């Protein structure tokens, strides 16, 4: 005999098994991105066309560096969890699990690559300034 009632076992779970947590996370990150993305378009877009030194100097400045890092961190998680929903809609079984692991890995990899590049840009720009003194 089960001691939990049907209701007690169902509350907060639903078909996802985790209630509305995923949905709420996407809502929160979408609001964050709504503030970040319009500025990012111009911060990123205005750097295109510069020389290598200019590109490094551009992203080494605090505002473009922090904004690009934020858009990457929030945007890549938003992508991973959004792509997960798409995969859960159209695929099943081991294929679904494999593809979800793939998009999660891809978004973490791209995040790490961008953060590494930004960090090295700050370092390169600081070194260049010290050499000029």
């Amino acid at each position, binding site marked *: *005999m*089960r001691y*939990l*009632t*049907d209701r007690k*076992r169902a509350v907060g779970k639903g078909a996802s098994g985790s209630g509305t947590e995923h949905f709420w996370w996407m*809502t929160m990150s*979408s*609001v964050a*991105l*709504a503030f970040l*993305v*319009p500025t990012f*378009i*111009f911060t*990123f*877009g*205005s750097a*295109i*066309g510069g020389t*290598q030194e200019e*590109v*490094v100097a551009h*992203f080494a400045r605090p505002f473009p560096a922090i904004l*690009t890092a934020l858009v*990457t961190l929030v*945007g*890549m998680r938003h*992508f991973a969890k*959004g*792509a997960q929903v*798409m995969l859960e809609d159209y695929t099943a079984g081991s294929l679904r699990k494999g593809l979800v692991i793939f998009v999660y890995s*891809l*978004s973490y990899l*791209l995040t790490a*690559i*961008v953060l*590494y*590049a*930004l960090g*090295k*840009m700050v370092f*390169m720009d600081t070194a260049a300034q010290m050499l000029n003194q």
Partner: protein
Amino acid sequence: MAETKRVERPLSPFMIGPYYRPQMTSMSSILTRITGNALIAGFFLGAWWLIAAVSSPSYFAVVDWIVTSWIGWLFFTAMLWSMWYHYLTGLRHLLWDTGKGLDIEIAEKLGWGALIGATGLTFVSLIILWII
């Protein structure tokens, strides 16, 4: 007492296919998913370009050529449109979450608004980027 009984319920057919005609509501919805997932391609090229900028000059030259060529321009313009479209339909979802704008007439108008708005915002963005 708590045994679950499987009930055979009819499933609603997929919105794209022979059962429904193409409609603004379903098409603007699927386009939200397509643009959102397509943006990973733009992010991929952007990240590649950034990592190339901290690599050797010859390596940067290769990636920068792709980014600044007409192919790169066309690609990033498509990404810009996708970004703005996904942005506007994302705002539409936030509106829907409050329980407003769910009537068919308003939802269809919001669909057209996202299509026209994304195109307009892409042009405005390109003009601003050309000036600055």
